């Protein structure tokens, strides 16, 4: 009896593991930044290159940090979702214009709409490196103390906004600064 059952059991165990493997997303690497202070930056603003945005400027606010670029295909998919989120004015949205040509980036915002309160430039990818960015788009959520509370890899979709971002933002807005 065991002689026939054993291969069957082995097969089932393997099938279960393979089925789990199908559902895994190897592209989504958990960020070691979670629940740590957001990496500091002082970077020129895309729309006003002479001014700099510093992380300290954002203290006391809940903010979203969205990594984007005009060369990034999935950012185009994500863009209307961010525009809609910006309209709700639930959260400050900071853009990191990652390894992009400033002219192309400005053109992108002019034609597709600008959901960002401020976009900063990271032409050589150093800020991205500090944030552990490995694919664009990526979106981080910071609380009022400037601690990274959530990271989303890949384009933000309307479902993500409804089910994850908005509830989290509401929760963080209610926290004491």
């Amino acid at each position, binding site marked *: 009896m065991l002689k026939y059952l054993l291969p069957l059991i082995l097969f089932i165990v393997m099938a279960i593991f393979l089925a789990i493997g199908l559902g895994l997303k190897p592209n989504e690497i958990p960020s070691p930044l979670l629940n740590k202070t957001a990496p500091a930056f002082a970077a020129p603003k895309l729309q006003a290159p002479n001014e700099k945005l510093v992380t300290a400027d954002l203290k006391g606010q809940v903010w979203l940090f969205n990594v984007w670029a005009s060369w990034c295909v999935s950012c185009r998919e994500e863009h209307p979702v961010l525009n809609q989120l910006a309209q709700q004015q639930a959260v400050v949205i900071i853009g990191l214009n990652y390894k992009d040509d400033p002219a192309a980036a400005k053109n992108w915002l002019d034609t597709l709409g600008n959901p960002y309160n401020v976009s900063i430039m990271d032409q050589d990818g150093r800020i991205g*490196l500090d944030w552990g960015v490995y694919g664009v788009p990526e979106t981080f959520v910071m609380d009022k103390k400037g601690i990274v509370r959530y990271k989303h890899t890949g384009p933000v979709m309307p479902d993500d906004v409804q089910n994850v971002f908005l509830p989290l933002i509401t929760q963080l807005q209610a926290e004491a600064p």
Partner: protein
Amino acid sequence: MKPGILMLLLLLSPFASDAIDSRQFANPEQQEAYETLTSELRCLVCQNQTIADSNAELAADLRRQVQEMLEQGKSREEIVQFMTDRYGDFVLYKPPFKLKTGLLWLGPVVFLLLGLVAVFFVIRQRQPRSQQGFGIPTLPGDKEAAAVTENGQAEKLAKIRRLLDEGDVS
């Protein structure tokens, strides 16, 4: 050139290929540290390549970072720490031994042991019955069974001898 030599050179060519962009350091120790570090850090875009092998832009940025840190006199550990602080253990091709990576490190040993146990049972099962009975009979039934098989063995041996003595008549 003889075709044989040409063939040999072609076969060896993958070993001759240089890193994607090789960088020069004034100090040979730094050069060596650079080469080992870049071949131990994973490119996170093309996940099965090291940053030394990868053409991805991110890999180039990470190589530049490693180079700059080495030139600033940072140690190997500091650079590895810098990378894991940002990208997590996943960036390392040799993950540290932790509770989370325990299965990764011990998995092969566990499977080897399982395999050895399986081999042991298969071998034991395949042994002829007569030999199995040679253990010390403990149950009353075992004793009889052993006696029967020993008798059977003796009978067989006697038959074989008889046949040998008679020779092949067919």
